[in-house]
Every structure is written in structure tokens, then in C-alpha cells.
């Protein structure tokens, strides 16, 4: 698939030196900021895309979020994990962008999507499955979408996602549950037909 590196591992690698990197970036060390950007670029772009849908818009929002984080580094509490703090800023940047640009609300999910489509046993069909997943994601409420992506794609814990989204941990569990209930059948149908 697109990103062979397990997301949780990617985010956790070198976390012990993360506080040092942030401290260096805060004091104006561009190389340290570059390392942080490289480390979180993929997660930031995926989170932004989960909010916005459009990949170009998502990249713009992810960039806004990363640069906003650079400006706000003085506000970061080094006793807390950096990733959730950063992704919260990125998610907010994406939400702001969506509001500003009045991106079309997602169309209600076609029941046919949940019921599954043709078996995606070719590259084209695999692409079609991804498209169906994107459409299914777009049909979810934004918070539910983010909770699912942060949990199943980025590998954050419920507590960390609660901190990112500013909602109770129980609500995160509920959002992930409802999101999976809608998306899981797409994969199940694909496998059954395979």
C-alpha cells in the first residue's frame, strides 16, 4: 500500500529526542524543524485530507498547520507528546480552511457503497475501492472521520485523540465505533467476493 511504515512506529520513532528537537526548533534551528516536518508530514497531510477530501486543499492546510505550529512553538508544553499537539493544530487549520472556502458538504453516502461494489481484484478496482473509502469517509461527520483516521491510520490512543479533538475519551471510542460500522462492510464485501 501507500505507506509501508507502520504509522504508530513512525510516530514513536525517536520520540525520546523529540523534546530536544522541539527545543532546538524553538531557538531557531531550521534543521531541527525540518526533522519534525519530515517526521509528521505524512500524518499531517492525511489528517488534513480526512477533513478536506481534496488532496491539494489538504496539502495547503497541512502546510498552514505546520507553519502555525512553528510560530506557536513557544506555547508547546514539552512535558506532553508533540504529535497530538501538532496534529490538533493541523486539524484546526484544515477545519478553518474548509469553513473559509465553503467546500461542498459531502453528499450522503450512496447505500450501494456500503453494500459493496464490484470486486476490486485489479489495480483499477483497487483504485475504485479507495475511491469508495474516500467517499464513505466524506459522508461521515468530521469529528468521526478524524477520530477514525487518528486511531486506525495514525495509531494514536483514545486518550491522545481526545486531547487532539478536545472531546472526552468515551466520545472518541463512540466515534471510532460508528465510523468503523460504516466503513468495515466495504472491506468485508471486497474480501468475501475475493
Amino acid at each position: 500500500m501507500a505507506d509501508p511504515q507502520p504509522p504508530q512506529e513512525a510516530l514513536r520513532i525517536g520520540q525520546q529526542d523529540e523534546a530536544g528537537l522541539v527545543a532546538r526548533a524553538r531557538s531557531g534551528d531550521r534543521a531541527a524543524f525540518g526533522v519534525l516536518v519530515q517526521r509528521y508530514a505524512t500524518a499531517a497531510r492525511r489528517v488534513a485530507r480526512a477533513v478536506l477530501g481534496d488532496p491539494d486543499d489538504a496539502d495547503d492546510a497541512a502546510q498552514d498547520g505546520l507553519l502555525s505550529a512553528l510560530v506557536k512553538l513557544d506555547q508547546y508544553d514539552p512535558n506532553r507528546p508533540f504529535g497530538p499537539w501538532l496534529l490538533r493544530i493541523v486539524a484546526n487549520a484544515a477545519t478553518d480552511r474548509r469553513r473559509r472556502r465553503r467546500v461542498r458538504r459531502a453528499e450522503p453516502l450512496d447505500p450501494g457503497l456500503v453494500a459493496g461494489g464490484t470486486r476490486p481484484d485489479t489495480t483499477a478496482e483497487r483504485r475504485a475501492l479507495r475511491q469508495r473509502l474516500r467517499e464513505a469517509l466524506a459522508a461521515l461527520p468530521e469529528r468521526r472521520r478524524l477520530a477514525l483516521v487518528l486511531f486506525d491510520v495514525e495509531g494514536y490512543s483514545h486518550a491522545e485523540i481526545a486531547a487532539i479533538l478536545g472531546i472526552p475519551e468515551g466520545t472518541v471510542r463512540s466515534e471510532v465505533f460508528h465510523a468503523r460500522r460504516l466503513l468495515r462492510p466495504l472491506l468485508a464485501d471486497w474480501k468475501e467476493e475475493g
Partner: protein
Amino acid sequence: MTSSLPFHHRPDPELGEALRGALDPGDSAAFVARVLARAEQIQAGSWDIVLARWARVGVAAAALVALAAGYAVGRTAAATLGMRPSVADALLAPSPQAPEAEVVLASLIGN
């Protein structure tokens, strides 16, 4: 398959992988380069702002110093002039002594 249960409280690797494919952001290097280039611009912009702020303070300080120096020079000159009697002072002020010859000559020449 336990991982497919929606209420399972651990990440679902299968769904996660499928979603990663669906949300694949593409070329990461180009994006990182773009962000870092923009960060450089922001830093340069912030330095411009800092320098401009200092420049304004510098100009204001220089103006104050120039005013103070002008005032001081003016005071000194006035004090220096004030120590020598003017023509009018010499003519108008009653003096028990005879007027100085040069003052009288100056008044005549001036008239």
C-alpha cells in the same frame, strides 16, 4: 476476525491499511521542501519586521539626540553671548563708569 469488530478498542490494521491507501498524500519530499521554503520566508519576514522595528527606534533616538544636542549648543551660545554687554545694554544701562570706546563707536557706525 476480531479486528473487524467495530467495538474493538485496538487499531484495526486492515482498515487502517486500506484507509492509508485511500488517503495516500503522495510525494512527501516535495511537500517537505515546500513547507521548509515557506518557513524560511516567514523567518526572513520576521527578521525584516524586527529590523524595521529597531530602525524606527534608532531613527527616533537619533532625532532625540539631535534635538538635545541642538538645545545644548544653543544654550551654550546664548550663555557665551550673554556674558558680553550688547550695544543696547551699554547705551541704556546707567553706568557709573564711562562707556567703552568700542561700544560707542559701534553704535555710531551702526547708525
